[in-house]
Each structure stands twice: as C-alpha cells, then as structure tokens.
C-alpha cells in the first residue's frame, strides 16, 4: 500500500512518514481530548434524554389509549348487559303474564279438589248401622246346648237360624257400608292426582322464575362490576371481546365463502344481460353487476335485521316508530324476496347456458354424437333444481351476515385498541433501548478515543505520578492543606457518581 505524495513528510521513507503522521494525529487528538470527550458525552446524553423523552411520551399515549379502551369496553359491556337484563325482564314479564296468569284458576282447582276430598272423607268415615239390639238378648239362649227334647231343639234351632240371619244381615249391611266408603275413598284418588299435578305445574313455574331470577342476578352482578369500572370487569369484557372477534371473524369467513358461491351462480348469466365484453376499470361489467346484486342483498339483510331490532348497527332504524319499522321490515323483506327470485331465475339461466356451452364444446371437439350425448343427459334437472334452490336460499342466508358483522365491528374496536396499545408499548421499549444504547455507545467512544491516544496518556500518567510524588513531599511540609484538597476531590467524585445515577434512571 502506498500513501499519496502530499502525505509524504519524509520523501525518502514511507514508513517514517506514516509514523510521523500517527504521532501528529495522536498529538492532535490528545490536545483535543477534553472537548472531544465532552462532545461525545453530551451527544450521547442528548440522544439518551431524547429517546427517554420519546419513550415517556409513548407510554403516556399508551396509558391514555388503555384508559380510552377501557372506557369504550365498559360502555359497550354496559350496553350489552343492559340489553341482556332488559331482555330477561321482558321474558319474566311474558312468563308471568302467560303462565302465572293461570295461577287463580289453579288455586281454585286445588280448593275445589280439597273440598271434594273433604266431602269424600266425611262420607267415608260414616259409622255403619249397628246390628239389631235383640240379637244380644237371644245370644245366651242360642248358646244353650241342645237337649233331647225335640221341641226345644226345634225352638233353639229356630232361634239360632234367626240369630244367624240377623248376623248375616248385619254383616251384609257392614259390607255394603264398607263398599260405599271404599267407593268414596276411590273417588278421592283423581282429586289427589289433580292436586298433585297442579302443585307440580306450580312448582315448575316457580322453578323457572327462580332460574330466571338467578340469571338476572348474575347479569346484575356483572352490571354492578361494570358500573364500578373495576379492572376485573374490564378484563372479563376484553377476553369476551377477543372471543367474539375470532368467532365472528370465522362466521364472516364462511359468509364470504357463501357470497363467492352466490357470485359464481349469477356472474355467467349476467353476461347475457349486460354483455360479456364490456369492461369497467379493468373488471367485466357483468361481474360488477353480479357483485352489486349480492351487496344489495346483504344491505337488505342488514336493514331487515336492524328493523327487527336483532342488530343495532344503525341506531336511527332502531329508534323509529313501530309502525314505520314494521313497514321497513316488510319492504326490506319484499326486496330480499324479489332479489332471491331473480337469483333463482339467473341460476336457471346459468344452467341453460352451461348446457349450451357444453353441447357446443362437445360438438366442436368431440363431434355431433358427443354433442347429442351432452344435451340429452338425463338427471340434469337435479343440478338445475339445486342451483335454483341455492340461488333462492343464499340471499336469505346472507341476510344473517348482519349478526356476525355487528359482533365483528364492535369487537374489532377492542382488538385494535389492544393491538395499538401493545404496539405503543413496543415502541416505548425500543425507544428506551435506543436511549440506553446511545449512552453506552458514548461511553465506549470515549474509551476508544483514549485507546487511540494511549501513548500521550501513558506519558501524562508518568508525569502526573512524578508531580504527585513531588506534591506529597510538599504536603509533608504543609500538612494542613491536605484535607481540604481531599474533600474537594471527594465532593467532585460523589457529584459525578450522582450524575451517573441520575442518567441511568
């Protein structure tokens, strides 16, 4: 390697020139050491503070964003919980009106049945008629043992027979009475069953009410939490929002698939209506027309869902008078129905065109026989019917896209907020890292600077030591001056360390 001529200090020796240059540069650097150190240190400090200031600002923005996110999340959660509670109360109201309105009837039924049972019970407890009193009187006579006298025997036999007849009569009367009592008791069974059933119904109704009230309690607890603006509520709503975001995103992806199929169903026949060779902004007009039809269907579906108050994307529609709202429901449904019918027609036309295309291609590439075969395919009606069915059903299915769309829009606000906050935090960390990096780079540059001028520094060190030695000898002569100098050095050192700590913080 050769150095340029103008740098040759000693023209005869390149090596000497290089050494001289090194010495000169070293000397210059040594002379400029203090201001250079100060410049490097101040530049690194400036960068360090600037980056830290940026990081602090970003963190502040992140904090504000988080607060705003929390507010939005809580407001959305509050609204949603209010809607749920409102709906639960409506259900309870409906239930009370519908089922518990029968309560007086049920009560009357039970009372009637109880009265009936009481009557039956009273009747079943009636004492049966006692056997006639004379039987007791003749019982001892009838018990007399039979003698040989035939007359007595005859009399006794007659008495016994009479007694037995009396007893038989009493027994029959008792049996009759028991039978009647059993009949009364049997009559009580349906009444008891009826009461049991009525109580069962009552129990079920009360249980449903209890379940509903438990649900309301749960939602009310959530509502209180949200009203308190607690972190727990915000965390709960945030996770719920994320879940909603992914679920609605998944459903929307499915809906987009449906819309794509729908598009393919009507794009081809649209060429018959608007022409197949006209383009607008690089897209075929027939495709644009098909897309517009699908978008109009989706819009009608949105309006229908809004009018039915299933979604709340347009508060104006929700706030309309019921009469106007019902009109809007009818109008949007009619439009949707008409568009679905048009699509079914287009799907039919598509099938005809496909058949024609297939016949033509078969004729061109496979001859007339193939063309005939292609046209006369039996069972083509199945695909025609399926296409028409899809053409009619898909617009209605797409109408329900409004529900996941609403969830997606609402939850995406939260998700975007969380992502943005994360991004800001990342920026703040990066900024702090850059700040610290610039500070340590400054320190390293100072050291590298000193490394470059190691030789003059080494000489300076030797000179300083000699001076120190000389100075200590002088101090011995003037010992009282030493503590003051030490103190000054100590104060300077402590100040330096303090400054460093401050910078690090």
């Amino acid at each position: 390697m050769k150095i340029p001529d103008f740098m040759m200090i000693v023209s005869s020796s390149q090596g000497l020139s290089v050494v001289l240059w090194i010495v000169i540069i070293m000397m210059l650097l040594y002379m400029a050491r203090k201001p250079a150190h100060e410049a490097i240190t101040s530049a690194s400090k400036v960068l360090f503070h600037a980056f830290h200031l940026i990081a602090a600002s970003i963190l502040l923005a992140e904090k504000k964003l988080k607060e705003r996110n929390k507010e939005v999340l809580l407001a959305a959660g509050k609204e949603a919980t209010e809607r749920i509670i409102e709906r639960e109360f409506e259900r309870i109201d409906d239930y009370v009106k519908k089922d518990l309105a029968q309560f007086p009837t049920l009560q009357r039924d039970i009372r009637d049945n109880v009265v009936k049972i009481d009557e039956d019970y009273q009747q079943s407890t009636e004492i049966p008629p006692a056997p006639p009193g004379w039987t007791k009187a003749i019982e001892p006579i009838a018990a007399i043992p039979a003698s040989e006298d035939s007359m007595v025997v005859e009399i006794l036999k007659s008495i016994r027979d009479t007694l037995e007849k009396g007893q038989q009569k009493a027994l029959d009367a008792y049996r009759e009475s028991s039978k009647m009592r059993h009949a009364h008791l049997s009559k009580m069974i349906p009444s008891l069953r009826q009461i049991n059933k009525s109580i069962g119904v009552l129990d079920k109704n009360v249980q449903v009410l209890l379940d509903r009230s438990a649900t309301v309690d749960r939602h009310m607890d959530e509502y209180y939490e949200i009203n308190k603006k607690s972190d727990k509520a915000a965390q709960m709503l945030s996770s719920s929002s994320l879940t909603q975001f992914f679920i609605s995103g998944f459903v929307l992806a499915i809906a987009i698939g449906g819309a794509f199929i729908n598009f393919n169903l009507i794009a081809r026949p649209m060429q018959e209506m608007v022409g197949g060779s006209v383009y607008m902004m690089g897209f075929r007009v027939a495709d644009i027309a098909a897309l517009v039809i699908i978008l109009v269907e989706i819009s009608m579906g949105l309006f229908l869902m809004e009018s039915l108050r299933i979604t709340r994307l347009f508060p104006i529609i929700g706030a309309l008078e019921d009469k106007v709202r019902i009109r809007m429901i009818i109008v949007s449904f009619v439009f949707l129905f008409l568009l679905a019918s048009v699509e079914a027609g287009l799907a039919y036309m598509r099938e005809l065109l496909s058949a024609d295309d297939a016949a033509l291609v078969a004729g061109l590439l496979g001859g007339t026989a193939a063309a005939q075969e292609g046209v006369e395919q039996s069972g083509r009606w199945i695909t025609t019917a399926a296409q028409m069915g899809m053409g009619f059903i898909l617009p209605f299915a797409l109408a329900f896209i409004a529900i996941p769309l609403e969830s997606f829009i609402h939850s995406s606000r939260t998700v975007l907020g969380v992502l943005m906050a994360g991004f800001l935090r990342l920026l703040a960390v990066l900024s702090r890292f850059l700040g610290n990096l610039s500070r340590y780079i400054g320190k390293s540059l100072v050291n590298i600077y000193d490394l470059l001028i190691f030789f003059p520094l080494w000489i300076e060190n030797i000179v300083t030591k000699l001076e120190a030695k000389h100075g200590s000898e002088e101090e011995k002569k003037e010992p009282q001056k030493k503590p003051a100098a030490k103190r000054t050095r100590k104060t300077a050192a402590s100040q330096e360390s303090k400054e460093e700590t401050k910078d690090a913080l």
Partner: protein
Amino acid sequence: MKKIFLALLLLLGLSSCSSDGANKHNRGVYMLVDTSGTYTQELQKAQQIINYILSQLESGDSFVVASIDTGSFSEKDIIAKVTFDDRPSKANQQKRAFVQIVDNYVKHVKSSPYTDITGGILQATEFLNEKDTASKTILIFSDLKEELKKGYVRDIPLQLQGYKVIALNVTKLRSDNVDPRKYMTRLKEWKEKVEKGGGEWEVINDLERLDKLLKE
C-alpha cells in the same frame, strides 16, 4: 361542490365503461390455411384447430380463417370471419354457423398451384389492425414453403409489433427428408422475418399442445 365531485366520479365511471374499454380486452385471431399442392390433405387437422380455437374464444373476440393460395393479399381469400356478440348465447350460435362455413369450404376446396404466405400475413395484419384488438395472433397452418407466381412482389418488410405469429403443423417435405437443413433454414428464415418485423414467433407441430395457442 359535493355534487360536482359526484358527477365527475360518475363521468369517470361511464367513460371507463365505454366501448373503447371493451376493445382493450378482446382477442383477434387470424388463421391462414395453406391450400396449395398436397397440403389440402392436412385440412382435417386445420378443422380440428379451428374448432379448438372456437371453443376458447369469448364474446367480443374476433376470428378469421383465410386460405393461402396464389395471391393471398386479398379479402376474397377470407373463408369465414366473425366478431362474437356480447351475449354468450348469441356467440355460441355464431360459432355453430362458423363451423358450418368451414365444413363447406373443406368439402369443396381446390388446391392452388402457388403459396403466397407473405401476402396472407399482410392481409392478416391489415384486418387485425383495423379491428384494433387487445391481442393479435396470426396462425399459419402451412409447411412454410413459399412459392410465388412470377411477377408477385413480396419482399416487403412486415410490421408485426404486438403480434404473435404461430406456425402450425409445419410438415416436412420430401426434400427436407433428404436434407434436413432445408427445413431448419426455412423455419429460421421465417423466424427472422417475423422477429425483424417486431413480432413474436412460435412453432407448434404437436397438436396435443394446442392449449398454448391463445395463452397470453
């Protein structure tokens, strides 16, 4: 101000929807069929290719089939020509009619003594330039052996910028079999001629590769 902006937007949409826009996407195909000498025996293959092309073309595209004979630079040599209707169903009817015309021609074709390929190409460029299609393709169904009648001047430089010229079914002649260099030289000369005119040159001898015909 808002209304003006909306009107401008509408005008922009309408202007981009004009018929000029349609021409930017259509295709123009001009097929030259050699009817000289024994090459008329190859016309069945030409029919297959025509049918294939018809199956590939869509609404707005133009297709011409013309014969190569003694003097091909003439509208009289056009066997059939069509620009397909906007409606696909109507376009299908046009395709069927086109096939009929070509069938009739093939049945009654008479071989010509000379082969004026350059004249055919000139006629094709004239037609396609007039049609102003977005893509322009000239198909030459021939053995590429040009034989001009005495007095016919054809050493004219071709203007083929934006054209794709495809030679189809370039059969080998008896003399080619004796000296294959003749065949190669013939192909090379045509390639140079086309590329000198700014066109793109391709040879497809295998009719199984017809899918490459109209690829952009």
